[in-house]
């Protein structure tokens, strides 16, 4: 096939045609691209160059998938030529693909080392201006992975001061991210210094110098991080370290503002950790119970199985409000709905105690509310004969708590309860007896109580 597509188009070169498609309204339609390509070359077949390079790409991907680093490197050798692709769209996309594949290969290849990776990263940074920041950031992460903190920091500083052309919004976010990572590294040094400081005596002659150092570090870091965490996103490690520093210097309002914003700003993606951080902060500040309850309520809606839910339960239990106390029961049931929590002895203990307390307090309706939706599946989920046997074998205390709950919810005829009752245990004997009595008295299937 002849390759004289240019003739057909007169003085317009390949590049001009393609870029006009690309720049249209900032959108790119791959199908339109291929359509225009086929028009441009007069409906002729794709160039072999395009065919072989895309075959090469799939060979690399296959080799990576099979962890054949050697083969991948071999194909990579040929794939570099896409940097010189005459199709400008593909040429522009090439550096990023090459960086991703190449860094993957160099990360795992047995013959590769830190030096090769660094050279590769430095080369890729300078191929086309578009990738400088991204490559720099990923390079820094690679260095961090290998414990080279100083190099990583230097890398980030270089990227931070790099300027070229217009500052687009996507680039600004990248710069913020780079700065934030730099901040995170500074936080790391700061936190090490803080450890040193805590080991020193206040009268130690070195104390002042170290304290000064700690102070100097902090304001640089906070400036670096604070810009990033204002942008909607998930910035857990940044927020955490930022708040830690604010708290250390006594800026509680600042810290609270950051955390509140991080948890409640609607522009941010929903993030359970944000609420966890806020709760922990409030707990440290000894905030009023109602405030903490309202934070955990949101967390409960997001992650009903979160380990803080037991703490939430204790808060609710102590509350004077009736609705809180009802919620306290709901939360316990909610936790135990999850397979991961079935062996959580505290949860069972709380439930056993709280069920008894609720029933004693004449709130049978609360229990039935919760139980109705669960009575179909909890018996086989929690209270089967199999579970009775294995629970008893593994953890007799857990089995006892569960048996009590089973007895209360299913009555004394329940298999789980009967199995545990039959076990003859010297230490727990008394407890089991007490349990038997309570079940007789309070079980919700007990005819005497079901008016």
């Amino acid at each position, binding site marked *: *096939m*002849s*390759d*004289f*597509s*240019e*003739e057909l188009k*007169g*003085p317009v*070169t390949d*590049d001009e045609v393609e870029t006009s498609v690309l720049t249209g309204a900032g959108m790119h339609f791959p199908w339109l691209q291929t359509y225009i390509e086929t028009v441009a070359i007069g409906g002729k077949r794709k*160039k*072999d*160059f*395009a065919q*072989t*390079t895309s*075959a*090469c790409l799939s*060979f690399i991907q296959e080799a990576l998938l099979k962890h054949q*680093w*050697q083969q991948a*490197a*071999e*194909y*990579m*050798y*040929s794939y*570099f*030529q896409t*940097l*010189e692709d*005459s199709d400008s769209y593909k040429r522009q996309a090439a550096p990023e693909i*090459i960086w991703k594949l*190449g860094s993957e*290969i*160099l990360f795992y*290849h047995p*013959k*590769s080392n830190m030096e*090769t990776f660094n*050279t*590769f990263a430095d*080369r890729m940074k*300078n*191929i086309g*201006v578009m990738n400088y920041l991204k490559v720099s950031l990923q390079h820094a992460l690679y260095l961090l992975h290998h414990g080279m903190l100083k190099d990583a920091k230097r890398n980030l500083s270089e990227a931070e001061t790099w300027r*070229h*052309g217009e500052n687009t919004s996507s680039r600004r976010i990248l710069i913020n991210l780079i700065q934030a990572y730099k901040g995170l590294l500074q936080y790391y040094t700061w936190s090490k210094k803080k450890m040193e400081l805590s080991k020193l005596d206040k009268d130690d002659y070195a104390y002042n110098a170290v304290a000064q150092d700690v102070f100097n570090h902090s304001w640089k870091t906070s400036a670096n991080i604070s810009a990033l965490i204002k942008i909607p996103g998930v910035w857990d490690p940044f927020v955490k370290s930022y708040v830690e520093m604010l708290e250390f210097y006594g800026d509680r309002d600042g810290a609270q503002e950051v955390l509140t914003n991080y948890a409640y700003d609607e522009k941010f993606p929903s993030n359970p950790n944000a609420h966890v951080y806020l709760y922990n902060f409030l707990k440290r500040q000894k905030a009023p119970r109602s405030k903490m309850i309202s934070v955990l309520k949101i967390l409960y809606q997001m992650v009903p199985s979160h380990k803080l839910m037991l703490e939430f339960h204790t808060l609710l239990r102590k509350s004077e409000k009736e609705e809180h106390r009802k919620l306290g029961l709901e939360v316990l049931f909610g936790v135990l709905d999850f397979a991961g929590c079935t062996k959580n002895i505290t949860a069972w203990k709380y439930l056993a105690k709280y069920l008894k307390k609720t029933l004693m307090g004449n709130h049978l309706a609360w229990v039935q509310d919760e139980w109705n939706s669960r009575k179909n599946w909890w018996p086989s989920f929690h209270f089967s004969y199999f579970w009775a046997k294995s629970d008893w074998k593994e953890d007799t205390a857990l089995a006892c708590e569960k048996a009590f709950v089973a007895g209360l919810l299913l009555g004394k005829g329940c298999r789980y309860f009967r199995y545990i009752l039959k076990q003859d245990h010297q230490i727990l004997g008394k407890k089991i007896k007490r349990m038997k009595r309570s079940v007789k008295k309070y079980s919700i299937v007990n005819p005497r109580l079901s008016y």
Partner: protein
Amino acid sequence: MDLEEAEEFKERCSQCAAVSWGLTDEGKYYCTSCHSVTERSQEVINTDLIPNTQIKALNRGLKKKNNSEKGQDWYVCEGFQNILCQQAEALKNLGIGPELKNDVLHNFWKRYLQKSKQAYCKNPVYTTGRKPTVLEDNLSHSDWASEPELLSDVSCPPFLESGAESQSDIHTRKPFPISKASQSETSVCSGSLDGVEYSKRKEKGIVKMTMPQTLAFCYLSLLWQREAITLSDLLRFVEEDHIPYINAFQHFPEQMKLYGRDRGIFGIESWPDYEDIYKKTIEVGTFLDLPRFPDITEDCYLHPNILCMKYLMEVNLPDEMHNLTCHVVKMTGMGEVDFLTFDPIAKMAKTVKYDVQAVAIIVVVLKLLFLLDDNLEWSLSNLAEKHNEKNKKDKPWFDFRKWYQIMKKAFDEKKQKWEEARAKYLWKSEKPLYYSFVDKPVAYKKREMVVNLQKQFSTLVDSTATAGKKSPSSFQFNWTEEDTDRTCFHGHSLQGVLKEKGQSLLTKNSLYWLSTQKFCRCYCTHVTTYEESNYSLSYQFILNLFSFLLRIKTSLLHEEVSLVEKKLFEKKYSITKKKSRSKKARRH
């Protein structure tokens, strides 16, 4: 110094690719966005960029450029001549006689230049200025002696002396605007003198030289010499880099610079396609008004009898099948001199796809013997297997199943290797091609980066894996009796599938199905489309195997099979009474 003065300098910065220049106190350019200073200083560039300077100054500028960057003047046809020279040289190295280069291709090319009015005629298209130096000794690769008696324009000034006095002509008398000074200001330009004009030229009745056309020239010469290289071999050698084609321009002499439009003319990013080159061969042959080619007789390599033998060996089929292919050739008349010989001046100029045809004949014979309906071939295989088990001392019967198993494995391995090699093919030349001078530093920098990256990754590659390129061979598969892993079927007999009747042999199989039921009535060249799923699996396998061997599309082979069948059965039906030694064919 201010920015305004630097506006004339339009090259991209090699550091950051921006075009934004300032001048340093020493008159050197520096990039205002990244502050790197170039080697270039103001004067050199200004002399050829300020249009109003006197001719004298302009000339000085031009001379400077000619010597350093822009190289010497050259025409597109000289470029093609250089490539043809390289290709002829490569063919010589493959064992083709030197006459091909010195006489045949040389004459074809001269004839082409004459027919296309580029040289050897009264009014060549290049009316003024330097004549293209065609077929002269001063091109380093060329040892084609010039033959002045053929030149109509004998006074053509030799290449090197033309410089001084023709320079001034360029601006006054050139018919097409290719003054070098103006080029660097426009976006469209070329390194060759007529590149821009050449890529626009569209003249009726004139075959324009293109890269694929160079291979058409090579093939025509091979055909004229009746050499033992088929078109598919030639194209395979091109793909395996034994014959210069992709990036052939990088071996141009140092002074011949390529860029801009030359990129579209000489830079190529596809391997040649069989059908395309085949068509172009006929086109060129007709355009050159060549006489009838030397006869293809039975002792020529391109004769179907010999080619069939070759391909039977290649795909590990029994030698005995050759009798049958010869018979088909005889019956269809495809071995006749008039049918085989290329005659460009005949009314319907056509040449035979010798290799495809030979392979198609083998496919037809396989169909005659085994029917290939995914049924009969396997039951015949069972018979052969049983027979071979019983008679271990005799010459074994040909077992189609065993052959299939061995060929399938060999074919899959070969194909996998081929695909891998293609994926690893390096297309880009050491000399990057760029659109304009503005792009030049960028193109060179890209090249440098690719080379550096490749250098880095080559240390990660197992050195044993990258063996040098294999030597050219017309055989892709080798089968020997000694190889115990892969049975060689050459000596196996066809007794199991043939039966004697009197003095003649008949195929046991009396059925046949036609690859194509209907032929297009119109004059279109396609016979039918090949829809893979409509055909038996064994037929598909055989077509795939052979078309891989020739690097052609399966549909092309299918078409050729249909054509052979058409010939074979037309004759059969028209001469019904004639006693045939074999083959009873019936529509199925």
